[in-house]
Each structure stands twice: as C-alpha cells, then as structure tokens.
C-alpha cells in the first residue's frame, strides 16, 4: 500500500514512538516570533536550559508588533533579539529586514519538500504548500523544539481535496479555501492533514498555494499540503541550484515526497471549482461563508489588505489592477501592509504602491498588526472591516468590531464602493 506525503514525512523523521499513536519527529525548521517565543526563552532560562539544539535550523523574526508600539512589545522584541544574538542564530530578522513570518520564511527559501516545520503560530500550516509537514504548536512544544529539535504528534490522517475544473474570473485561492471551510466546518479537519490536489492546484502559483494552505487551521487542520512539482522547483531554484545539476534533477528528488497513487485517505472530497463565485464570510466563524452577491451592499468602515494569507506580491497586483485610477469610497479607510520588505520594494518598483496611495490607502510597514487587533488598524466598537486576513472571530481586529474575510480582489472592489462588492465587474 502506498503512502501519503504526510505519512512519508512522518516515517522519515521518526525519532521515537513512546506510546502507541504518538510519534516524536525530528524537526527541520523551528520558527520563532516575538509573541510566543519570549515565554519559552524565559522558561528555558529559569530551568537552567538556555540552549538551542542547532541554531542553523532555527529561524526568528519580530513580526507581530513591529516596530514596537510600547514598553511591553519592546521588551518582547528585546528578549527575542538578545536570545538570537546570544545563540548566534544567523537567520534572525529585525526591524528593517522583518516581515510576516509565513511570507518571509518561504521567500528566503527556508522550506523544502519533505521538511518538518513547527512554530508557535497557528498559521504555520501555510508551509505545507511546499510539500512539507508544517504545524502550529504552543509555547511548550516550541520550547522543546528549540531545546531538542523534536516535537510529538498524533499521526494525522489525510483528507484529500480534489479541486477540479478551473478558477473563473474574479475567483482566487482565498475563495477556494473559504468555500472549503464553509463546506466542512471549523472542525471539519481537526487532527487531519488537508491535502490539496487536482488541476486547480496544479495551475496555482506558490503564492496561491500558500493562501490555500494558510487557512487549513481554520477548519482545524494540522497542516495543509500541496504536491511538490515544477512550480515548487521554480520558486526554490535560486536557493537549491548548487544542490542539483538541473531543475529536472530537483524535480525528481522532490517528487519522492508526492503521495503515492495507491495511498489511503481518511476521506476524498471532490469539488468542482468551475462553479465557484467569489465568497465572503459573515458572522464570527470562518465557516460562515456566503457568495459575494448575497452580502453585496453591506457597508464597511475599513479595508485591510495584508497578512500571511494575502499580503504577497500576487495579491497586491490583483488588488492594484482593480484600484488603478480609482479612489476609496468617501469615509472608508484603506490600509495596505505588504507582507515583507521585498514585496514592499517589488510593489514600489512595479508602481503598485503609487496606485494604492493615489486611491487613498495608508501603506504600513510589513507586520501582522491589525489582523489580530494588535496595531496599525485596530477597529473601534461597532466598526466593520473588509479584510484579506484569516480570522473573523469576535473581537479579532478590535473589541466590538466585525470582520468580513475575502480575497484581495473583493477587498479592492469593496474599497471603491464602500460596501461589499463583486470584483468581477472591475476585471
């Protein structure tokens, strides 16, 4: 019997099986940010265990609140910074070089097919886009990851999603994943890997695949996973060209991580994407999804474009195409946070930043900030935000605020009209 990608990664990284059903894996990349890591560092110091298993496998960034907004966030940043320097962690990204972790680390080529990745951040599932097993964990698991380079998991079964057909105009990876979450519910994939397959995924860029995998956790999924292919090789080529003679050789090496044709799945779900229209969330759970037509006309106070879900160059291009020559509706605030300095710079060089600023957007530095109501665009009680982020929980972007999750295209159309609007008429 064949194996799924997740099963292959579990088998190749197995360190111990202390009890039936629990597998301790060797971790290839331990990622750290300044919100969940400082308490792990403090605890390690208190235990007299201020060590790291291997600094070259640890990546760290200050991204949630940056530049620091007050003494508390400055202290968190300092704890992470001092620790990174103390342990000579080479891949540490501070103010000026920092960006949203799940956009920055892939951009640096840190994640390859077959890797195991953990981070004290639920959206770590993003990196499964590269054919990796990548899971969000709590601070204690992170602490053990830093100290020993291992993490324990119940081996997850895999749900295979066959995404058939083609994406219609105005429909993007964000619409696909919101639709899937709407179908299976916020715990539809708990303790499961969500494997995304089919012609729709094959045709997607790595950016789109990351958007797809990013929201696996919103259905309870442990990791999203896409099959490594030539798109994966092309994205990683500048980082791996010394390892492989040709791209074909890299593809051959990566392909061994693809799920076998005769692999067994917990469930196989076929979805015809050709019939999908742009979608938007309502309410306070990411599985509360309606078509844009059903929610069109809902007034909004703010548009937020950014985050680990949709703050990449592709997203900015899509939104800028719609916003070009247009203005924000009167009374609506627009906030753009390109997810990394490189994305910011590329967007500037392409003239995208001009388009956003001419439309009336405020362009902030790369940060998680407003997505979780920390900084740079927090909502007031009773306000509504059209957002390209990933969570619409009550209070998520500010106490008493309402968040409608949507694609960059839908957020751009909504910015122009000041109410939820269908992007297709602008394309």
């Amino acid at each position: 019997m064949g194996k799924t990608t997740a099963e292959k990664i579990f088998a190749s990284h197995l360190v111990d099986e202390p009890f039936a059903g629990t597998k301790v894996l060797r971790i290839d990349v331990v990622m750290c940010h300044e919100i969940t890591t400082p308490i792990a560092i403090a605890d390690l110091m208190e235990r007299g265990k201020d060590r790291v298993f291997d600094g070259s496998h640890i990546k760290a960034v200050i991204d949630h609140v940056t530049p620091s907004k007050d003494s508390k966030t400055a202290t968190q940043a300092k704890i992470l910074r001092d620790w990174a320097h103390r342990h000579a962690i080479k891949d540490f990204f501070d103010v000026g070089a920092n960006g949203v972790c799940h956009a920055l680390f892939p951009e640096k080529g840190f994640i390859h097919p077959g890797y195991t990745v953990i981070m004290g951040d639920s959206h770590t599932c993003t990196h499964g886009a590269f054919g990796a097993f990548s899971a969000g964990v709590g601070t204690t698991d992170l602490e053990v990851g830093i100290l020993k380079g291992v993490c324990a998991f119940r081996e997850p079964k895999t749900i295979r999603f066959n995404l058939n057909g083609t994406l219609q105009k105005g429909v993007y990876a964000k619409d696909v994943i919101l639709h899937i979450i709407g179908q299976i519910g916020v715990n539809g994939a708990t303790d499961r890997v969500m494997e995304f397959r089919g012609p729709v995924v094959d045709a997607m860029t790595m950016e789109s695949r990351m958007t797809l995998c990013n929201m696996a956790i919103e259905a309870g999924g442990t990791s999203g996973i896409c099959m490594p292919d030539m798109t994966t090789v092309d994205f990683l080529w500048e980082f791996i060209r010394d390892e492989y003679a040709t791209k074909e050789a890299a593809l051959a090496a990566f392909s061994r991580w693809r799920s076998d044709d005769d692999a067994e799945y917990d469930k196989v779900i076929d979805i015809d994407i050709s019939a999908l229209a742009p979608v938007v969330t309502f309410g306070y759970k990411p599985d509360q999804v309606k078509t844009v037509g059903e929610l069109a006309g809902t007034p909004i106070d703010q548009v937020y474009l950014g985050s680990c879900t949709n703050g990449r160059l592709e997203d900015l291009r899509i939104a800028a195409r719609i916003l070009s020559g247009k203005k924000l509706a009167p009374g609506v605030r627009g906030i753009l946070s390109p997810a990394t300095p490189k994305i910011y710079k590329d967007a500037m060089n392409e003239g995208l930043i001009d388009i956003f600023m001419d439309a009336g957007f405020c362009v902030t530095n790369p940060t998680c900030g407003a997505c979780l109501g920390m900084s740079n665009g927090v909502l007031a009680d009773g306000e509504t935000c059209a957002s390209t982020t990933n969570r619409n929980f009550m209070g998520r972007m500010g106490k008493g605020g309402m968040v409608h999750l949507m694609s960059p295209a839908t957020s751009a159309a909504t910015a122009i009209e000041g109410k939820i609007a269908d992007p297709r008429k602008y394309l």
Partner: protein
Amino acid sequence: MKTFGGPVLFLDRSDINTDEIIPAKYLTEITKQDLKPYILEDLKLPGFDPKGEKTKAARVIVSRANFGCGSSREHAPWVFEVNGITAVIAESFARIFRQNMFNCGMAAIELPKEQLDLLFSHAGNADAAISIDIEAQTLTASGGGKQKVFTFDISPFDKALVLAGGWVDYADSKY
C-alpha cells in the same frame, strides 16, 4: 495520583475560540500571572460574566465541541491555570489547544455528547462540582444532592504528560 476538580463553569456553546479565551491584545504580557484579569474577556454568552463569582470560583470548565479553536497561543491554558482552572471537559478540542493543556500538565478531557448533556443538566445547581482522577480515568459529577461517575479515554502519552507535570522535562531527559 493526579487529581483535578472543584466548582464547574458551564460554557454551553461549541467553537469557543482562543481569542474569546484571551484576546490577542494581552499577548504582550511577559508573565502568566499578568494574564489573570482577562480570562474569557471577549466571550459573549447569555448569563455569563467573565468577571463574575462563578468564573472566580471555577476549577473545571465544561463546554461543547471544538473547544479552543483558532490561535496556537498557550496563553489560553495559562489564563485558566492562573485562575485556578486546570481541567476542561468538552465533546472535542482543537488540536493545538488540547496539546497545550497536556504539555502544561493540565487535562483536556473528551466525553461523548450524551454524557456532556448529563453534565450540563447539573448547570442549574449552585453546588455543581466535578472531581477528576486521571490515573483511574474517572470523573465524578456532583450537585443538588446527586452524584454520578463517568469514565473517559485519554491517550497514554497525554496521561504520561499530566503525571509528569509537563513536556519539557520529559523531553529533555529522553531526547
């Protein structure tokens, strides 16, 4: 033998998420103790007051499906811990929250819906209490002069973590 228990806080809704348990704006606190006043601050439920006496007295939470969904923040178990709540009983848990509870040496116990319904039938009793014996895998619900014992499943690994008091020392000695 590791036991948990005491007065119960009943939260009768599914999908109670980490942002409701502890809003992100408090994640800038550096110590667990500093989280204490903010427990369940953004949870809106009929008759529930995050700052009320029932919340203060609680040692166990009983809730519904998919408890603790959303963020990976271990601040969610920590805010319970510093408020004296060391066990949550629910129909199911989000993976990260569940593991965080056991990693901290606390208990996240799953019961089938029918048994949870029985527990919720105690919600009206002012003296509703639950005691949990991890070793024996039993919990005893009492209130209104009645008492009932339930058994539950727990993975051997999670049980070992609770009995060891958490994952860090366990892992450092072993790997």
